[in-house]
């Protein structure tokens, strides 16, 4: 034990002699990886505005090329043809997917990609464990360095969680699995137990002799796969923006952990960037729902359907409108604000909606789009769909920028959104969505609400006062069909 402690402190505070790896020796190689890391920073920096974003993406590509080429030229490659084939297979497949994927399916694609990063991290970690000499992480006595073992243990664990969690997220988003939360009994106890076990075993793994450690290593890996699965199954569909961001973050931390093992600056910088990016996105999403990260991750939201006020609901009077009514009234309007939600994505209504907006603009109507941060199934989902339908991004506004304008709006046109316009979030303290920032559609002179039927409620399972307001007209139909009918009527 004393020996191990001395070992740890020696490793933490001195430079281990890395005989096997040339990376630490050649400053040009380190510099190349650093440049790759800086190019990745610039790639994210470019996204601060649509004008600079494409240049940013190119920087990212160049950075990746530098990282790959540097690795290939500085290691003795015993298997270049195999590597070439592997890159061609993976690259070709990825490129085709990227070309073919429908923009509405972007959340699934991103979740799928996360799972691959997670799996790649696991494979690299396992390979480093099996062949530590090649990674330069052996000490003089042929043992894997203690600090490397901690990195390996954490790296494969985070990678495995990213993988299995993302697979579940993918299946839920893709509709292969019900979006409804699946609740196991005592799941909090199980989850905490497994997490504690992973951390404890990683600690144990770091101090035991390498030769005896393989069982522990595989157990850590298996538990991590299990916990990723267990963590995501109780989380419902509309909380997916948080989940996808969180897994994005994890994939970054996994890459960073592997970067530590390899002493590779590009991987460490990238891992830190991606890790913080995903964490910030999760935070933004949680804030936009006024829920804590813990409550989202604990899951189960939206599982229990609305309480016993169902009877009262039936009696409430509401008005039904037709496409002609909507077309007529919107033509007369001066200012219209359109609020798209996940329903628009499901119905693929973005093109029909843009056509409608174009026709209204030709009539001299001022049309704006208002997007809630959690609209859709991933951050920025609605923005991409509107961009796909070639809506000018100058006409698309975020919640806090446009919310004061509803008082001057003649029409609020709600298409496929529900909870984000529910005034209960402002007034009803007992509502599960109380405190969530919502659009003040009740201030608009006229509200059109496209919804498939009066039966369903939003994700939060609460009734929406907006349905019953005097100025509201319900347009009960498929979102795409309704937009097309309005276009015809215009």
């Amino acid at each position, binding site marked *: 034990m004393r020996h191990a402690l001395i070992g740890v402190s020696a490793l*933490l505070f001195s430079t281990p002699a890395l005989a096997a790896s040339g990376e630490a020796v050649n400053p040009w190689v*380190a510099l190349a990886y650093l440049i790759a890391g800086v190019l*990745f920073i610039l790639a*994210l920096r470019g996204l601060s505005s*649509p004008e600079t*974003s494409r240049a940013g*993406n190119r920087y*990212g590509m160049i*950075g*990746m090329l530098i*990282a*790959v080429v540097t*690795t290939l030229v500085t*290691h003795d*490659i015993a298997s270049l043809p195999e590597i070439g084939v*592997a890159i061609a297979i*993976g*690259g070709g497949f*990825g490129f085709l997917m*990227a070309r073919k994927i429908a923009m509405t399916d*972007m959340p699934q*694609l991103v979740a799928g*990609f996360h799972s*691959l990063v997670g*799996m*790649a*991290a696991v*494979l*690299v970690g*396992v390979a*480093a*464990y*099996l*062949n530590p*000499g*090649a*990674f330069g992480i052996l000490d003089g006595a042929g043992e894997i360095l203690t600090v490397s073992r901690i990195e390996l243990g954490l790296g494969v664990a985070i990678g495995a969680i990213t993988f299995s969690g993302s697979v579940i997220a993918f299946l839920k988003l893709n509709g292969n699995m019900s979006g409804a939360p699946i609740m196991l009994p005592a799941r909090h106890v199980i989850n905490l137990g497994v997490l504690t076990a992973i951390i404890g075993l990683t600690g144990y793994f770091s101090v035991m002799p390498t030769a005896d450690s393989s069982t522990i290593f595989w157990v850590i890996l298996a538990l991590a796969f299990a916990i990723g699965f267990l963590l995501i199954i109780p989380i419902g569909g509309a909380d997916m923006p948080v989940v996808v*961001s969180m897994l*994005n973050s994890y994939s970054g931390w*996994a*890459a960073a952990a592997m970067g*530590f093992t*390899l002493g590779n600056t590009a991987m*460490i910088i990238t*891992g*830190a*960037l*991606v890790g*913080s990016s995903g964490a910030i996105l999760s935070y933004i999403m949680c804030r936009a729902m006024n829920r804590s990260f813990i409550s989202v991750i604990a899951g189960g939201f939206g599982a229990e359907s609305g309480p016993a006020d169902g009877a009262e609901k039936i009696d409430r009077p509401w008005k039904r409108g037709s496409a002609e009514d909507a077309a007529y009234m919107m033509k007369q309007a001066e200012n219209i604000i359109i609020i798209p939600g996940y329903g628009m994505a499901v119905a693929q209504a973005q093109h029909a909606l843009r056509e409608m907006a174009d026709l209204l603009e030709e009539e001299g109507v001022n049309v704006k789009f208002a997007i809630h*941060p959690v609209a859709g199934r*991933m*951050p*920025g989902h609605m*923005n*991409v769909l509107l*961009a796909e339908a*070639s809506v*000018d*991004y100058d006409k698309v506004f*975020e919640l806090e920028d446009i919310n004061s304008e509803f008082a001057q709006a003649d029409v609020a046109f709600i298409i496929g959104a529900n909870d984000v316009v529910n005034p209960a979030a402002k007034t009803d303290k007992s509502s599960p969505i109380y405190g969530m920032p919502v659009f003040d559609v009740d201030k608009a002179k006229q509200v059109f609400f496209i919804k498939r039927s009066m039966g369903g409620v939003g994700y939060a399972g609460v009734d929406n006062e907006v349905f019953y307001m005097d100025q509201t007209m319900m347009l009960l139909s498929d979102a795409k069909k309704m937009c097309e009918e309005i276009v015809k009527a215009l």
Partner: protein
Amino acid sequence: MDFISTFSIFVMACFVGYYVVWSVTPALHTPLMAVTNAISSVIIVGALIAAAAGSQADGGQIAKWLGLVGVVLASVNIFGGFAVTERMLAMYKKKERK
């Protein structure tokens, strides 16, 4: 590199990430996720090392194949991630009003 140097780089990069990501416009959050996906596949570096190493050690042969599979997975992400980001970003444009 020793642990403290790499850890310093890591901490600094977290701060850089924090400030850079807050400056990303919310309209581009989906492309942000796609591009972070692509760049986190820099983990391909580790997979390449494993695949290149050949079999000096006992586990080397298995490690080589694991590395090759890792290269395939990371390549899907790199090409797919950058291509889909490019495709999305090309859609964000201002229309010329006649």
